[in-house]
């Protein structure tokens, strides 16, 4: 349980960093790290296939697409970075506060008791079968990736060549 909490904290921290950092490259790296931590969490929650998928698609492929997109963008100067940092801090200072408050509130409320949720909703092996049966979603994911690749090629690569 403690390990899970540590992992969740790390997840939220890396996600916050992803949102608040100024440089695109760092943001992309942050996203990849978030995905990786999420994969660990899924693994710990007995969903190995989901974890593998998350790791391969989000941490791997999407990261690769982002990196390839970012390489075609221009660099920004240090003065701009300082300026943007100020702006971003001014805009997003509430975000960590909200996350922390939400975390405290959510840990204090006993959802199961209040809304009488089903106690043990899903069996483990059911999950595995679920993932085995989800070929349609896999097909959809493949197409999303294809679309993303088209997007990068059309919007960024060809643009640069113009």
């Amino acid at each position: 349980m403690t390990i899970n909490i540590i992992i969740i904290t790390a997840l939220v921290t890396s996600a916050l960093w992803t949102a608040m950092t100024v440089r695109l490259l760092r943001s992309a790296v942050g996203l990849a790290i978030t995905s990786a931590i999420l994969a660990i969490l899924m693994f710990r929650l007995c969903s190995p296939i989901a974890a593998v998928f998350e790791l391969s698609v989000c941490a791997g492929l999407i990261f690769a697409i982002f990196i390839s997109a970012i390489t075609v963008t221009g660099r920004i100067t240090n003065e701009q970075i300082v300026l943007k940092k100020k702006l971003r801090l001014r805009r997003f200072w509430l975000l960590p506060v909200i996350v922390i408050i939400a975390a405290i509130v959510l840990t204090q409320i006993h959802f199961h008791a209040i809304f009488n949720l089903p106690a043990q909703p899903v069996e483990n092996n059911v999950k595995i079968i679920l993932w085995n049966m989800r070929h349609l979603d896999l097909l959809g994911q493949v197409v999303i990736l294809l679309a993303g690749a088209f997007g990068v090629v059309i919007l960024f690569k060809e643009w640069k060549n113009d």
Partner: protein
Amino acid sequence: MLSLFLLLPLLGIIALNLPYKGKKDTVALLYVLLLSVGQAIVVLFHPANFWHMPDFWGRFFHLALYADNLTLVLILSIGIVMSAAVLVAWQTISESKSRLNFINLALVALIGMNGTVLLTDIFSLYVFLEVTAISSFILIAFQRDLNALEGAFKYIVLSALATIMMLSAIAALLLFSGDTSFASVSQAVKNNCCNPIIIFAITLFVCGLFIKGGLVPFHGWLPAAYSAAPAAVSVLLAGIVTKVAGIYVLIRLVRDVFGPVGAINDILMIVGIISIIIGALAALKQDDFKKILAYSSISQVGYIILGLGCGSPLGIAGAIFHLFNHSIFKSLLFVNSAAVEKQTGSTDINKMGGLGAKMPFSNASCLIATFSTAGIPPAAGFWSKLMIIIALWQNGYHAYAAVAILVSVITLAYLLAIQRKVFFGILPDELKNIKEAGIWIVLPAATLAIIIIGVGVFFPFLFNSFLVPVSNFFK
């Protein structure tokens, strides 16, 4: 053989992107036309061996696909609008490479839409909505016009909001159902209909779909995206993409999965009537051809939602029929705007006039589409609006029916304003040498106009054979 609707376009995308030389764009055009026209034909002639053949691919993939009458209507509309959009793109985009890009993305969108209407699982639904959405973002922006990039970005931002809402809703529903198929979700909703979490989840899902469908007050992205997109993309987007992604899913979920939970019907009707009024009023004072059409789209979608919210079989049948009609007449109007934009280089209706004599086909088809939109017989739109209004009246929603009729007048007003400012009046000097748009714009425009009139005139025959079965499946 339902999986062919997904696998054939995918096969096309793969084949088109193999590294070989040749007239790829022509082949691509023919392929996508073949697919979309074939899709329409398969619905229209309904060959039994096609629909009932056991799915060959099912042995390899577990694709839980399912088609009923509602799906067939949508598949038909997708086929018609897609072929019109591809032809318009062929006329308006001249570069071979851009054409190829467009067709690739159109194929992705085709997979997304076909998947959305065929699947039976709430999570797959999310996946295919994303496929559709991503392909449309890129389609809007793909000519890298600055306005278009902005429109696409607005769409991305609000669509992301919708995605978050829907995903959280799916998670919450999964807590109860333990499975994401329509059947088990429906069962779970029925068993726990008094649970606030379920209500919350359904609300989130429905609001997400409101954003996707562009209903007031969730419509912020829609005018910018529709009007900034390239001509052919507007046809596709307004004609079918948002209708499948927002409205079809709403109809399917509200009727088939959630059932009449809580005040959902009232909410649908209120959102519908607000959209009808705001959309029509906003369209009244615009002076951009495509912006007027975009707001008109909001207003017409309101009618669909109103019919759906009314809840009676006639209302739902009217809503589905209006969905079909809307996809036809709105694509036709956007095809006409594409013709005007292509020939004059502008969409500002104040700068035009007297194009009717020079562009007779566009003029006539635009008038037909106007009649269908405003609900004037014998155009098809008259019947669907009539069905919706009768259904409202029968169920005691007299005020809604009255407003729906009144707004029809406003609809006619703003569309006739287009007609008057663009096609009638005096021809400005700088447009003296204008000609009718090319054959690939005129052809789809004429076909769509014929469909409108044909459906309108033969409606009494369609009513028993086509529409009554469509609404019956909800019983």
